[in-house]
């Protein structure tokens, strides 16, 4: 991209976080959240605490056998623990009411602490008197594992939509990345080659999307939907022909090795979950962190947001709108392609038909729930991964709550979010609108 010196003052003048409007007028008190907290707290008290059989215990296992520092399993009396956790929740709810009445803003710690207590109370109830351990490390590791493609996909969607291109094709990009990663890794018998190849597949799909969107002004959602079908068709076709004719050459399993970070990986509970991972997961940390900084603090990020919010203004100051959109969408496709690699080389699996299984759509939901913000999208994706992980773990130990309901949860939360319950969700102003000079 060429630089114009005339733009620099503008770039400095616009501070980070321009999306938060400062409103000095007194807003009516919002009782929505305090009421929600009270209802959830009462639910916890009424169901999780009072329905836990008295005298039964819930067992939590805090380490796996392979850990260096092995914490002992923890047994807690179900009823008393759930009761204490519920009372604490109601305390937090009371605090929320107090804060709302006084118009004091509580920090992010409040909902997070509340959520943690609620989840713990639920787990205590779910594991009460079952005689089986609740494997905490497995639960968290599973949550991260299930979140990885979601996080990559959400970052892809974020970069695309911030530059004004709606990306429904994340699903296709993940699948294409998974496919090429498997094929390249198998052909060169190296998982790392697969990892290098995957972004190109995602970028190719992104390139097609933006080509149709920018050059031919085709509705971006339509192109996205059709590209998903195209990628499913292509990969399934090649899978049934080439990959099955000679599976040893084209679809042999390759796995990225785990690279434990010395020191950090020995932290109890979180260490093995976060720091005994493959390079792909570490790359994910880097990408999320980099985007968190770059989207709001760099020239690239400023231009991207300008093009997504008001392309005409961006064009007026000399930003090449189509070129910015093309570059960013292709780059975003590369990110999603990397995420796709997680399905195959990241987990040491061979490619299977439609193995992305709708994860791209959940990634899209995570991005929206995270309000087009890297940090928010990360948290949303982790939440989705966690609820799926809880659903999977609980379905193996058997619970009073159907696992399908837990698996449904991310989608229900997203609907509430876009319906305006969790604050106002505002997409970039110019997304989906072709820029015609």
């Amino acid at each position, binding site marked *: 991209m060429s630089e114009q010196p005339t733009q620099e003052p503008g770039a400095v003048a616009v501070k980070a976080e321009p999306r938060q409007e400062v409103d000095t007028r007194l807003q009516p008190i919002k009782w929505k959240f305090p009421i929600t907290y009270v209802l959830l707290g009462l639910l916890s008290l009424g169901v999780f605490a009072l329905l836990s059989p008295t005298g039964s215990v819930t067992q939590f296992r805090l380490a796996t056998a392979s850990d260096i520092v092995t914490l002992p399993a923890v047994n807690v009396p179900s009823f008393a623990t759930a009761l204490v956790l519920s009372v604490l929740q109601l305390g937090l709810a009371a605090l929320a009411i107090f804060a709302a009445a006084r118009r004091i803003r509580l920090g992010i710690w409040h909902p997070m602490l509340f959520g943690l207590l609620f989840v713990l109370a639920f787990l205590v109830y779910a594991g009460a008197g079952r005689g089986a351990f609740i494997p905490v490390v497995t639960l968290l590791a599973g949550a991260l594992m299930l979140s990885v493609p979601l996080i990559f996909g959400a970052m892809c969607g974020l970069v695309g939509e911030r530059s004004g291109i709606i990306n429904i094709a994340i699903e296709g990009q993940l699948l294409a990345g998974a496919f090429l990663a498997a094929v390249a890794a198998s052909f060169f018998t190296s998982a790392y080659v697969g990892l290098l190849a995957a972004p190109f597949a995602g970028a190719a799909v992104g390139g097609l999307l933006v080509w149709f969107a920018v050059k031919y002004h085709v509705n971006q959602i339509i192109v996205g939907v059709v590209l998903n079908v195209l990628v499913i068709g292509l990969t399934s076709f090649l899978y049934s*022909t080439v990959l099955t004719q000679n599976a040893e050459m084209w679809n042999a399993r390759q796995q990225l090795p785990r690279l434990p970070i010395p020191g950090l990986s020995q932290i109890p509970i979180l260490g093995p979950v976060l720091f005994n991972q493959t390079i792909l997961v570490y790359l994910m940390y880097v990408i999320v962190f980099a985007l968190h900084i770059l989207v709001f603090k760099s020239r690239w990020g400023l231009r991207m947001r300008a093009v997504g919010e008001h392309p005409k203004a961006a064009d007026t100051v000399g930003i090449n709108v189509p070129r910015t959109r093309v570059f960013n969408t292709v780059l975003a496709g590369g990110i999603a392609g990397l995420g796709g690699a997680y399905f195959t080389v990241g987990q040491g699996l061979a490619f299977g038909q439609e193995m992305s299984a709708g994860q791209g759509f959940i990634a899209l939901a995570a991005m929206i729930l995270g309000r087009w913000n890297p940090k928010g999208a990360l948290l949303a994706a982790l939440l989705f991964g966690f609820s799926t992980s809880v659903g999977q773990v609980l379905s193996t130990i058997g619970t009073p709550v159907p696992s399908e309901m837990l698996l449904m949860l991310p989608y229900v939360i997203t609907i509430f979010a876009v319906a305006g319950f969790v604050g106002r969700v505002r997409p970039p102003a110019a997304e989906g609108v072709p820029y015609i000079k």
Partner: protein
Amino acid sequence: MSPEKNNDDDAAPGGALKEAESRLHYAVRELSQASWVITLLSVLVALVVGALLILATNPQVQGTLGYFFAQPGDFFLTSFEVIRDAYSALFRGAVYDWQAATPERSIRPITETLVNAVPLILAGLGIAIGFRSGMLNIGGQGQIILGATCAAFIGYAFQLPVGAHLLLALVGGALGGAIWGGIAGVLKAKTGANEVIVTIMLNNIALYLIAWLLRQQWFVQTGSNQPIAAPVDESARLFGILGTGFRLHAGIFLAIAATVFVWWLLERSTLGFEFRAIGENPEAARTAGVNVPKATALVLIIGGALCGLGGAAHLLGTEYRLAAGIAGTLGFDAITVALLGRSKPLGTFLAGVLFGGLRAGGVLMQAQTGTPIDIVLVLQSVIVLLIAAPPLVRAIFFLPHPDGSSRSSRRRRLREQQAAETASQPAPRQEVTK
């Protein structure tokens, strides 16, 4: 947001025809503007893409490539035979099988095409109503699942006389789809929630809902742990209309009736006029007195009902038993059907028949030549992508631009225009690359 708008930029400006132009040039230009020509050419390109894919993955063809320079003729001959076999199987499976043993078996393929087309047409119409009203209903999948689920439950859990049972099952199916579409519609109308996101989420919720229902004994009523429901009663099935040996059922009449109904709704009724008005310009529609939230909700309710009816017809006419994979890829196929039909009722009907035919033919092609049926997905998506971008199709076939000018003259004009612009600006600050 409606797909038709994409064609705005290549609609003819209607300028006077220059006398210098020859008649032939005029005819070519007229042709290149006609949407059916673009459709035809798109299908052609898709078939070529499919042929290349088949060739690239065929072991016989790869074998002849090994000695290509010694005997290039072998390569071309084998390629021709492979493509001919694959596509003739596709045709025989979809339209008329001249190799079949009996005349009955010869005409069976076209009836199979119609069997596949029934749910595609019904659901495609539901999606098309949304497109015409400026709403992208991606939730066909969920609405089909709900429709099939409701229809199935009514079909085996209730005991009713012959006609009433079928009618109730169909109405139940439509209602199920209407509720699922209605959630998105009402949310959009009340809160402005983006219908694309809500319908995608509802698709996934429907998947888990059906998975949960199929584990409940009160729901499946089979007495076994298999995640499949009891078969629907005979009295609730869509009856066959060609006798034994054919699967074609009365659902095809339903599809025809729905096509006529949607045509009447969109083109002749007040409500349809309001739908199209909010699709074209919601602000103007509101000013003209249209109750935009109500119309928005109704679009998705009616669209959902049609999708639900599609699911119900699929279940009551062909599947009979509800399983988790009941909808297959119908929901997403329906979107491509509506796009290919340009959201017009008749177009959607024909597109549904075409895609139904591809699916029916794909089965025979897979059985006889080993070409995986997934190629049908590639054909579908390439067709729809190209139809959405007529300038690309014209570029592939070197057709003239609809404004009548050749490519070089347009480029020249653009250059002159840019030169004039730069001259008028005092200080050239911008890079002009377009």
